[in-house]
């Protein structure tokens, strides 16, 4: 396997872009990425795009805007980990020596989705549990209830990631929200599924993100940003659930625990000591609280204490979602798996502005897709470890 480097990143501001198509959004992110990388789009040798609800062949339509053509292009879908899957597949091609440089995109327009299907909670079509009204909030409400029953979490603990991440979003230029929230304002917002209120949920968003990965040799020849320390992808794992997972505790999702363990082993890092910054799938505030221990940032069962120690804030042992996370950044589904990789690269380059984690050398980017239920709607986790 060859080392794989991050040559450039790009993204749109996340939010409501009702007048833009997925092709417009994707092209803006792809153009920003090639400009950041300082290469011509004609240099790209392969392209992957993660998305859930776009029209067919979005990647070709997007890259047509840039004149990148006649290369292998693939659109991949893996629920909220679609973008992670695009990054993973590109990583593999470069690592295995198949291509020297390529682009991984993620794009979504929930505005377009809503025009087509109407607004509402996303229940999975044709799924047994979905037909019985299992939705994302109702699943994560069970996770919150488990946190309170088994981990002693309070409502304040459950709301904490939302408070922290909305605060971080205030200083992120790409963030959908620029609004601080408090435990009081969170709990005063409409109840969706006890104890999850609207302000504990990520918003619906439109947006795109793109990353350009390359081999070491290509990086040495083409990197024009000499001030940037070289950042490589040390671990890349797509972890998928099995039949047994339906009987696991939502507080111990094997798909996340094993995915993080495998990615850390691949990168040769110890998550308790070595990981300096994390971007993760905080679709719901309580989900982030439950993730600390599953990712191995602290001992099993210690996630609530880890949060209370403020280890996950800027200045703490391992800041989590210093970008503002899905809760404040927004969550254009297919784009988020790429966006978290970009945000970790930004952190390791020292280019995260007011949201910078000082001295960050190793970061973890996680996305989780699907719902932990029976055999029809399984879970996939995408985990990347970036290091300099």
């Amino acid at each position: 396997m060859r080392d794989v480097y991050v040559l450039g990143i790009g993204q749109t501001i996340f939010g409501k872009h009702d007048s833009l198509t997925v092709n417009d959004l994707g092209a803006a992110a792809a153009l920003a990425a090639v400009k950041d990388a300082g290469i011509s789009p004609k240099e790209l040798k392969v392209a992957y795009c993660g998305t859930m609800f776009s029209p067919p062949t979005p990647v070709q339509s997007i890259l047509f805007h840039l004149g990148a053509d006649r290369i292998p292009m693939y659109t991949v879908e893996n629920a909220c980990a679609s973008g992670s899957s695009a990054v993973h597949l590109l990583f593999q091609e470069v690592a295995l020596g198949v291509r020297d440089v390529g682009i991984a995109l993620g794009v979504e327009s929930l505005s377009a989705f809503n025009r087509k299907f109407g607004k509402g909670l996303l229940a999975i079509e044709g799924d047994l549990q979905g037909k019985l009204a299992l939705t994302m909030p109702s699943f994560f409400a069970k996770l919150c209830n488990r946190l309170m029953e088994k981990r002693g979490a309070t409502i304040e603990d459950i709301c904490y990631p939302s408070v922290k991440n909305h605060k971080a979003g205030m200083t992120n230029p790409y963030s959908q929200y620029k609004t601080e929230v408090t435990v009081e304002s969170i709990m005063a917002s409409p109840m969706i599924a006890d104890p999850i209120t609207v302000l504990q949920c990520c918003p619906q968003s439109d947006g795109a993100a793109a990353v350009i990965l390359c081999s070491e040799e290509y990086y040495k020849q083409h990197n024009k940003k000499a001030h940037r320390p070289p950042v490589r992808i040390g671990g890349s794992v797509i972890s998928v659930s099995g039949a047994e997972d339906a009987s696991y505790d939502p507080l111990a999702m094997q798909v996340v625990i094993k995915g993080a363990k495998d990615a850390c082993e691949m990168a040769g890092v110890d998550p308790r000591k070595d990981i300096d910054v994390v971007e993760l799938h905080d679709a719901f505030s309580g989900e982030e609280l439950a993730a600390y221990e599953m990712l191995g940032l602290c001992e099993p069962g210690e996630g609530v204490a880890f949060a209370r120690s403020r280890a996950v804030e800027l200045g703490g042992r391992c800041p989590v979602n210093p970008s503002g996370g899905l809760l404040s950044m927004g969550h254009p589904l297919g784009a988020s798996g790429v966006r978290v990789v970009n945000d970790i690269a930004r952190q390791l380059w020292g280019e995260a502005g007011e949201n910078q984690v000082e001295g960050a050398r190793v970061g973890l980017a996680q996305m989780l897709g699907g719902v932990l239920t029976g055999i029809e709607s399984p879970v996939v986790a995408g985990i990347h470890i970036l290091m300099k």
Partner: protein
Amino acid sequence: MSKQVVFYPGALEERDGILVQMGHKCRDCGKTSYPPVELCPFCSSENVEKVPLSTTGTVFSYSITRVPVGPFKPPIIGGYIDLPEGTRVFGQIHAKPEKMKTGMKVKVQTGVLWTEKDGTEVIGYHYVPCEAGSGGA
């Protein structure tokens, strides 16, 4: 009589005039899966037999949704029910929200989930608490 359909193919089958949840019990690994699929989802064995699921179980975890979802009006109580054979089934629980407790015993019932615009009744299952003294558990 209005037309009736089962909400999910294979989720319920008629046995002796009543609708029952049918799962697959694997003769090789011994696990029971629901709803039935081609092979045992645990060990890929073809050696599976259709068996009725236990009609009572315990609530592993639940949540109460306060907004409408599809045809369902709030509050909607959804729960994971652990059956004695080790299978975890998702279903709605018809109970007073304030009476809900993790670990409580519930039993399955079948009936109309919703009625389509053309009058078709969609049949499914839900759980209700086993009242003390009812002998349900």
